[in-house]
């Protein structure tokens, strides 16, 4: 990717990061749509021999030969039996029955995680720079499990099974489905054993935001990644016939609109359909849009599809306006006609001008990349949000990483919009989604793994979370772009990843497989259900009081019951006690605790208030007692708990919900 390394501080001091030869020992397995091996991003110049631990293969097939693999792309497999069982034999005129990426998504995620550095990368001149993965020297193994018709569980499970057997250290899954119970969720089941065998598993949190409770992949042994923005955008400058000026986002690079004002129409006024404002296929009246700029509302169909609808109806250009759901988030797309994306406020202003003027006109220009945009990061509107409906005692998402307007490698088999009619071919594309933020974390986890090869997946996840930042340098909370308000731990989890700090977190919340067994007992799972997940016999002791809140997780979620009090009396406060264990991963030191709570409704007592560690891997436990006043059902409140020795800050978000 371009810009992300600088934004995350990766380029700053090479000495601080693990030596490239150590990073070269780490293997990232990507379950996705395959890869386009011809890209420069898979160049293996400067990489040493393939790690001796590697047992994977380079499966060949249509458009993919054994020479497609090298010391960067060290493994490539494809899994289609589940897909073909559902859809019939793959039509090789439509898609490659091989690890070849016909879509682009898998190439984008793989090169984001571990692409080799490529100078002069850009998309039509936008976002230019040196594109490199988060762990540019790590090795990539692609496991193609997603096809034109979707991604099927039996294929995904076969890929996880094979990837762990092949010897990957990190597994990256930018996909998701519904969230059934863990013992009914084949990805969660596969990820459990992968993590138990030392593999770090990161997954995208989903694009169901900003709705609350919209998360995917919430198993506590999976790292669940939300999306934020970079400090970069691609401004489009809009001028209306009344002289008013606005800014939007655009990646358009073709023949520009004339510099003179052009008639503008709101799609809702150029359609006979009740949902005409969304520019759905076949809903625009060509007589009313020919030669005009058309204002379309987001939603209903894909953003790029709207551009096709307007272009096919004879529109000269498109302004894509956010509805309330997306607020001021502006996603840039490589539309096939002059197009600009605008936030809800700008969209509403343009629509009211159109309604108030007999002959509304407008013009816009595009073509630049702007850096240093503030505030950044902000939470992407689409990024799925907590609370974790499956297990309210586990706070998800875990953290956020860049996922908006990310430039990375692309397939040579599809255009940047992915539309059939898009015949342009590019080496890099700019797209958005938690699919993009997940491989950022996968690559950064690989860096942490390279620096600390003996750390468990849970320790790596802890390092990434407890060093994440939840506020800007001015102390204000990271903004949620969908509301313009400060974000909460249900939006950002522990906060935005900070790789430099993650390499030296001081203390970690480590979690063993046995801890997860105890967690499953706390879920009241039967021994059969536990055996489905863990493939082992484990009997929960009837005499033990297993508590979900005691899973040694780097964050806190505290679901509270609103007591129903008869007679109007005052309900007594609720007291819950959580236990955590910290493992020292630095020199000897003494840490003191501090808590910040955003609301007086909960008193927080930490015991002890100071922890001293004399040697590495020494463990110390503490308890946190929450004394919560009764609050109306649906109330949410947040706090933060930090251990600091003056050099390291080990931060944890706390989320309270009253139901």
């Amino acid at each position, binding site marked *: 990717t371009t810009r992300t390394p600088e934004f995350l501080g990766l380029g700053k001091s090479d000495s601080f990061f693990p030596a490239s030869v150590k990073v070269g020992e780490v293997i990232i397995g990507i379950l996705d*749509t395959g890869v386009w091996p011809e890209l420069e991003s898979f160049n293996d110049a400067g990489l040493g021999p393939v790690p001796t631990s590697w047992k994977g293969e380079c499966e060949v097939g249509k458009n993919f030969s054994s020479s497609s693999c090298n010391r960067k792309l060290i493994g490539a497999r494809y899994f289609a039996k589940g897909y073909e069982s559902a859809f019939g034999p793959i039509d090789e005129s439509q898609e490659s029955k091989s690890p070849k990426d016909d879509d682009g998504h898998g190439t984008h995620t793989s090169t984001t995680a571990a692409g080799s550095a490529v100078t002069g990368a850009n998309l039509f001149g936008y976002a230019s720079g040196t594109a490199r993965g988060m762990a540019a020297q790590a090795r990539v193994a692609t496991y193609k499990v997603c096809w034109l018709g979707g*991604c099927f569980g039996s294929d995904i*499970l076969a890929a*996880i099974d094979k990837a*762990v057997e092949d010897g990957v250290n990190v597994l990256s899954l930018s*996909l*998701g*489905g519904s969230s059934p119970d863990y013992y009914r969720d084949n990805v969660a089941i596969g990820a459990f054993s992968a993590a138990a065998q030392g593999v770090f598993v990161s997954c995208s949190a989903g*694009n169901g935001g900003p709705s609350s409770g919209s998360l995917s992949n919430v198993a506590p042994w999976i790292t669940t990644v939300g999306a934020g923005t970079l400090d970069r955008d691609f401004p489009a400058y809009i001028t209306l016939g009344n002289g008013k000026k606005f800014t939007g986002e655009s990646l358009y690079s073709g023949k520009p609109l004339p510099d003179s004002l052009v008639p503008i129409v709101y799609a809702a006024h150029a359609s006979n359909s009740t949902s005409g404002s969304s520019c759905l296929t076949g809903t625009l009246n060509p007589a009313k849009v020919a030669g005009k700029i058309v204002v379309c509302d987001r939603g209903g169909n894909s953003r790029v599809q709207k551009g096709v609808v307007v272009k096919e109806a004879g529109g000269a250009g498109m302004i894509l306006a956010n509805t309330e759901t997306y607020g001021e988030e502006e996603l840039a797309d490589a539309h096939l006609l002059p197009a600009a994306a605008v936030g809800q406020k700008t969209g509403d202003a343009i629509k009211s001008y159109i309604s108030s003027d007999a002959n509304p006109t407008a013009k816009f220009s595009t073509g630049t990349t702007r850096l240093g945009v503030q505030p950044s990061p902000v939470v992407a509107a689409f990024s799925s949000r907590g609370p974790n409906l499956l297990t309210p005692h586990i706070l998800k998402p875990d953290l956020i990483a860049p996922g908006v307007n990310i430039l990375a490698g692309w397939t040579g088999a599809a255009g940047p919009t992915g539309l059939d009619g898009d015949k342009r071919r590019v080496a890099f594309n700019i797209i958005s989604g938690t699919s993009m933020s997940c491989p950022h974390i996968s690559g950064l986890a690989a860096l942490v793994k390279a620096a600390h090869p003996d750390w468990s997946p849970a320790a790596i996840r802890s390092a990434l979370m407890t060093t994440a930042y939840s506020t800007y340098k001015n102390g204000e909370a990271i903004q949620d772009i969908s509301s313009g308000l400060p974000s909460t731990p249900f939006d950002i989890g522990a906060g935005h990843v900070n790789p430099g700090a993650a390499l030296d977190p001081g203390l970690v919340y480590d979690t063993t497989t046995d801890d997860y067994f105890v967690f499953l007992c706390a879920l009241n799972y039967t021994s059969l259900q536990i055996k*489905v997940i863990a493939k082992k016999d484990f009997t929960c002791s009837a005499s033990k009081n297993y508590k979900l809140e005691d899973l040694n997780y780097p964050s806190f979620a505290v679901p509270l019951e609103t007591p129903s009090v008869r007679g109007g009396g005052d309900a007594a406060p609720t007291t819950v006690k959580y236990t955590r264990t910290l493992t020292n991963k630095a020199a000897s030191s003494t840490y003191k605790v501090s808590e910040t709570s955003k609301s007086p409704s909960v008193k927080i007592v930490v015991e002890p208030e100071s922890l001293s560690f004399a040697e590495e891997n020494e463990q110390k436990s503490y308890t946190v007692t929450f004394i919560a006043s009764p609050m109306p059902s649906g109330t949410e409140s947040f706090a933060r708990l930090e251990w600091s020795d003056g050099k390291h800050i080990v931060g944890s978000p706390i989320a309270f919900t009253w139901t």
Partner: protein
Amino acid sequence: EKTNQKLKKKTYIIHMDRTNMPQAFDDHFQWYDSSLKSVSDSAQMLYSYSTVIHGFSTRLTVEEAELMEKREGILAVIPEAKYELH
């Protein structure tokens, strides 16, 4: 419609309790295959899994899946889910 539904095959992932493999079998694959043949003459195994789960995937009717679930050594019969790229 009901008959079609009953005859319609879907992909299932069969989680097997490997620690309870009957003595009669030399290896898991044989056991898996025999289990499959016991509920369906025509079903083929799509994948067998051995690293992160123990079991296999195959296409069964609802009825065959219910029969499979009752067999000795079967931990779970989970219908395959479809996932979307994010």
